[in-house]
């Protein structure tokens, strides 16, 4: 599932280049130009894909590591 999430992220990078309706002036719902409507949907899709990333690719060990004892902290921070 993790790999699928990162594949979706990669697909979003490709889907951003929507050259197929570069010159299309159709108004969606009568007032949003198609190219703008597509990118509004793209923003919503980005949010959805990141939601999937949180669910399936969340780095669960990071928090514990950050909060562990600070024995080595001064070594790095000095």
């Amino acid at each position, binding site marked *: 599932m993790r790999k699928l999430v990162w594949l979706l992220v990669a697909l979003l990078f490709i889907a951003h280049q*929507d050259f197929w309706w570069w010159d299309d002036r159709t108004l969606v719902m*009568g007032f949003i130009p198609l190219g703008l409507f597509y990118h509004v949907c793209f923003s919503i899709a980005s949010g959805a894909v*990141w939601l999937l990333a949180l669910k399936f690719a969340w780095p669960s060990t990071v928090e514990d590591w950050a909060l562990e004892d600070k024995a080595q902290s001064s070594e790095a921070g000095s």
Partner: protein
Amino acid sequence: MTAIIIVCIYLALLLVLGVVCTRYFRGTSADFFVASRSLGPFVLFMSIFGTTMTAFALVGSTSNAFSFGIGTYGLMASWSGLVHSAVFFLVGIKIWAIGKRYGFVTQCQYFTARFDSPTVGYLLFPILVALVIPYVLIGIMGAGATIEGITRGQFPQTFGGDGAIPRWLSGGVISLVVLIYVFLAGVRGAAWANTFQTIVFVIAGIIALKLIADSLGGPVKASQLVIEHAPEKAARQGLIGRWQFLCYMFVPLSVGMFPHLFQNWLTARSAKAFRLTVVAHPIFIMLVWLPCILIGIWAAAQFATGDLRLPRLPDGSPNANVVLAAMVNQFVESDFLTGLLAAGILAAIMSSLDSQFMCVGTMFTKDIVTRIAGEDRFSDRQTLWIGRSFVIAVVILTYVISLVAQGKAIFPLAVWCFSGYASLFPIVFASLYWRRTSKWGVIAAVLVTAGVWFYFFQESGYGDEHLLLVDWFEENKGLKHPVEGIMPVAVMFMSCLITLIVGSLLTPAPAKKTIDLFFPPALKGIPA
């Protein structure tokens, strides 16, 4: 007069918020610099979102849509939504964890430790500060211009001339308000203020859209006029090039190297606090940008029909920077909305300004004073006051520079600042994901990127828009400037990346001890 009263109420509310926040301020330097790493998901998100959105989100997006049509959204908003969240997820969370564990407060502290080299920190310090200063100036000068715009003709007795509150005064008041709440409660004060400011500018944009649409006979009629009188603004053909559209992907990477965002990340209570930010960021960008883009293209149609009047620039073209204000003034004619919009623009400006003041003050305190004098040289209380003193000094210095720079075209510099930070992104990414990254690779990458940046900067005439390979696109594709070309940021980014890789491979690998500190098994889990 109603408009300026609304702005005054808004500023007064910010001061009240600053005073209330002092009740939660713990009086320690850790609370001043990173809010004791205690911010929850909502405040963290609002703080980060408010910091990344500048006046450009309201004013610049509308004027760009007026000039270049709907492609402005894809160029900036949808790229930012995707790339910012990717950076928060892949870089921000790891930086938070490392910062939390090892007690870092600034980027230079992190890079110095990660590459086991004070040289890296000292090399990056002036570059990071130099790139943030124009960004701060834009905020102060933009705030002055906003107040001047809404008060024109209202105080002829007091200020003479066109009767507007002068920029030096409003810029000074805005700087003072930000200084007060930052001085009182540090990053926590800035985060609370950002939360309030983000709410203000999101609501202001939506209300402006509704009232302007109503005054134009509804959104359907307003957009229909675009198709009839400014059809090119409803598409991208002839206004934005496909390579340019792709190259803009690099610009939002700047959030990975912004020193003020680095500091914001460290304020999180936990890694989980990032979740809301990662998911909601693209949606909120859409909520702010969509109304502005629609208002921008509607303005283009109204201008084409002669119903919208805009002041002319010396070259005879309409001044696109005032499109949003002109649409509100000429079609809504509501002092209340004018005031709300001005408050919204100020909110967008100030929500970035406070974090920038804080971060520069923090960097001077942590990367210069305590680094040279030694961590143990000062008590916590002394460190807190050194931080406060530097914040005051930064505010005064940037305010004075803004007075000297009045009348100069400082806005185009913003893209160059963003490009500079974005070009250095490979360094922070490699520091987290590539063990082999060496200090010599980083030093070489910083120097080469700075050189390439400066070369393009002077080629542009010191701050104007600049596209590469324009002649090639014209000869081979029949496309003319500014429709097609490669943005310098793409070349700068690649220069940094290639130098970093080659430089690191040709020089000794980092010590195992350093790698063990920064690449523990627990941090492996982020990429697939």
